[in-house]
């Protein structure tokens, strides 16, 4: 019913909260403004970690899907992990896009740019959204699991192709020079620390949320099973004495 043992989950939960508070302190106050981007740099301390988690979550969904499909490791646990991670992924991806946009406006002067990273992230967002739509379709647990697992892997395989092709497209047209990578290669000191701390804090948060979402998934599956049990019992009961043999066997 849970990915982490309750005491561990509690610790991770509180640790992630503490880490996020520390991140805010450093990100909004402790770290100096950037020489080029000024205070807009501070958005990087949430944008980059969010992007990191967006891709990690997607990876987890892919791994969970693969493990489900592999006969030796087939278990609905992996399916639930995949589904839970996808929901987190769509949230972090959406956040990445919005934060990137908020950063881009003051620094680039535009809300959006057609560079490889942004476009790939946008496609990733839609791949997630499609997966979640598929997941909502009611079906028997293993049917749904298999169908979603295949869809997740099909999408996962596509991401590097999208990234590669968009990157190629945009560098060929030499727009890339204007929109240089938002991270200076020479980021160092407090700024580098804050960025890495952000990645760390968001990772803790992701683990904590994944555990919770997994738990919710288990509870809802359990509820459906029990409701089905109850419905069957009622049906069987209303036909007279509840037979101990399977329904349909004539006496």
């Amino acid at each position: 019913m849970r990915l982490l043992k309750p005491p561990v989950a509690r610790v991770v939960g509180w640790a992630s909260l503490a880490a996020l508070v520390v991140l805010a302190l450093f990100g909004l106050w402790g770290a100096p403004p950037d020489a080029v981007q000024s205070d807009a740099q501070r958005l990087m301390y949430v944008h980059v970690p969010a992007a990191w988690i967006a891709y990690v979550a997607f990876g987890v969904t892919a791994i969970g899907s693969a493990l489900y499909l592999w006969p030796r490791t087939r278990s609905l646990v992996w399916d639930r992990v995949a589904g839970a991670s996808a929901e987190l992924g769509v949230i972090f991806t959406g956040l990445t896009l919005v934060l990137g946009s908020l950063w881009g406006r003051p620094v680039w002067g535009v809300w959006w740019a057609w560079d490889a990273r942004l476009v790939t992230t946008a496609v990733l967002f839609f791949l997630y959204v499609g997966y979640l739509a598929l997941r909502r379709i009611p079906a028997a647990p293993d049917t749904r699991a298999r169908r979603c697992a295949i869809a997740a892997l099909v999408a996962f395989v596509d991401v590097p192709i999208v990234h590669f092709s968009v990157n190629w497209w945009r560098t060929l047209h030499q727009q890339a020079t204007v929109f240089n990578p938002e991270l200076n290669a020479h980021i160092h000191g407090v700024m580098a620390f804050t960025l890495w701390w952000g990645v760390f804090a968001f990772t803790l948060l992701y683990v904590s949320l994944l555990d919770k979402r997994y738990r919710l998934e288990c509870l809802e599956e359990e509820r459906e099973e029990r409701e089905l049990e109850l419905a069957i019992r009622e049906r069987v009961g209303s036909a007279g004495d509840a037979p101990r043999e399977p329904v349909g066997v004539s006496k």
Partner: protein
Amino acid sequence: MNVFQEAALVAGKDLRIEARSRVTVQQILPFGLIVLLLFAFALDPDRGVLKRVAPGLFWVTVLLAALLAVSRSFAIEAEHGARDALRLSGLDGTSIFLGKAGAIAAELLALELVLGTGVVLLFSVHLASAGVLVPATLAATVGVAATGTLYGVLAAGIRVRETLVPVLLLPVVAPVLLGATRAWEAAIDHTPSDAWPWVGLLTVFAVLYTGIGMLAFGPLLEDS
């Protein structure tokens, strides 16, 4: 019967149904042509805008038509227990996949021929460098047909499949749109050497998704 003979059987069935019902010719093709027309309404036909963006418009139209073609391909299996018959037929999932994808590809190629002519006539485009245009178009079409068939069977038993398949399929085939458009642009600009890398990408995509489809179609058909 080997895989290819079985696939030919399935493709033949689908194409024969098309020959009798003429849905592709009488409905999907006009849809494609209307979309091309609408682009002219939406954009400026007099300033060379259409001519410049013609490859992109062409391929977007092809993708939209492909959505319909995929939908149709699985709609014919939805009636009269045809899907059950397919499952019980003893045909290998791989063969059925290749057959259905092949039929969709054939239909798309026919559509592309007419829509391509439309683009040449309506948008004053001069197609050139057939040596690179043809491989690019073939690879792109196979990629779209394979991926479409994969998602088509995935959603086959789902009631909301009409609205679900587009949202699943289009993001995945975005690289195909990208590559095919760039290849056509290079061909039209008489710089075919620029197009070959994109042909490479399109081919990789086509091979990859045909492979995935061959593996996944059978299990997905069982579940649908």
